[in-house]
């Protein structure tokens, strides 16, 4: 597609439920990033995929968070047993090379009630 696409754009879930957030990167981009942005705050790195290499999971805040990238394209971020502190905007980005910078999707706003 023309840009990075994320779905859903908004998600309201009850505490304790699992959620899946989807990211479709720009076609041909081998690198894919997930970040979390709390209201008006900075971007917290979560996880990074690069080609067939093992993902860099160093930013995942707990074992309730996981992500996968199938076929080197679409990625899914899964949050199990959601907590209120998980409420944030989850941003996905992709790039063809790190030095070219990353292109961001519009994000998924997650609200845990």
């Amino acid at each position, binding site marked *: 597609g023309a840009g990075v696409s994320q779905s859903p754009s908004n998600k309201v879930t009850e505490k304790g439920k699992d959620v899946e957030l989807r990211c479709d990167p720009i076609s041909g981009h081998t690198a894919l990033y997930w970040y979390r942005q709390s209201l008006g705050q900075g971007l917290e790195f979560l996880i*990074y995929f690069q080609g067939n290499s093992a993902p860099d999971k160093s930013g995942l805040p707990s074992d309730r968070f996981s992500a996968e990238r199938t076929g080197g394209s679409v990625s899914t971020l899964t949050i199990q047993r959601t907590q209120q502190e998980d409420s944030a905007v989850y941003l996905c980005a992709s790039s063809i090379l790190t*030095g070219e910078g990353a292109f*961001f999707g519009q994000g998924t706003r997650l609200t845990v009630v």
Partner: protein
Amino acid sequence: AQSVAQPEDQVNVAEGNPLTVKCTYSVSGNPYLFWYVQYPNRGLQFLLKYITGDNLVKGSYGFEAEFNKSQTSFHLKKPSALVSDSALYFCAVSKGPGYSSASKIIFGSGTRLSIRP
């Protein structure tokens, strides 16, 4: 480990005056450096990048940034601010040229730029 510091939460500038948004970084080896802007209720937009070469980098909307290796800084500048420049600005760093493996991009905490008429 990579890190980025944006020491100012907020910068206030009068329209027409020059602006500077500060950024310092820490990374092993040579860096790739980036600036992004986030307007209210909109996604992150790429402004400019430093990869190698000239220390002064020019980007979108009249912005520029100066790479200073000795001070590990990459400050964002604009000679004459516009009210429409008001937004949240993020500096970012990744491991750069000469690093054989691909690298994540780490962002700073952001600086809110407010331009008054």
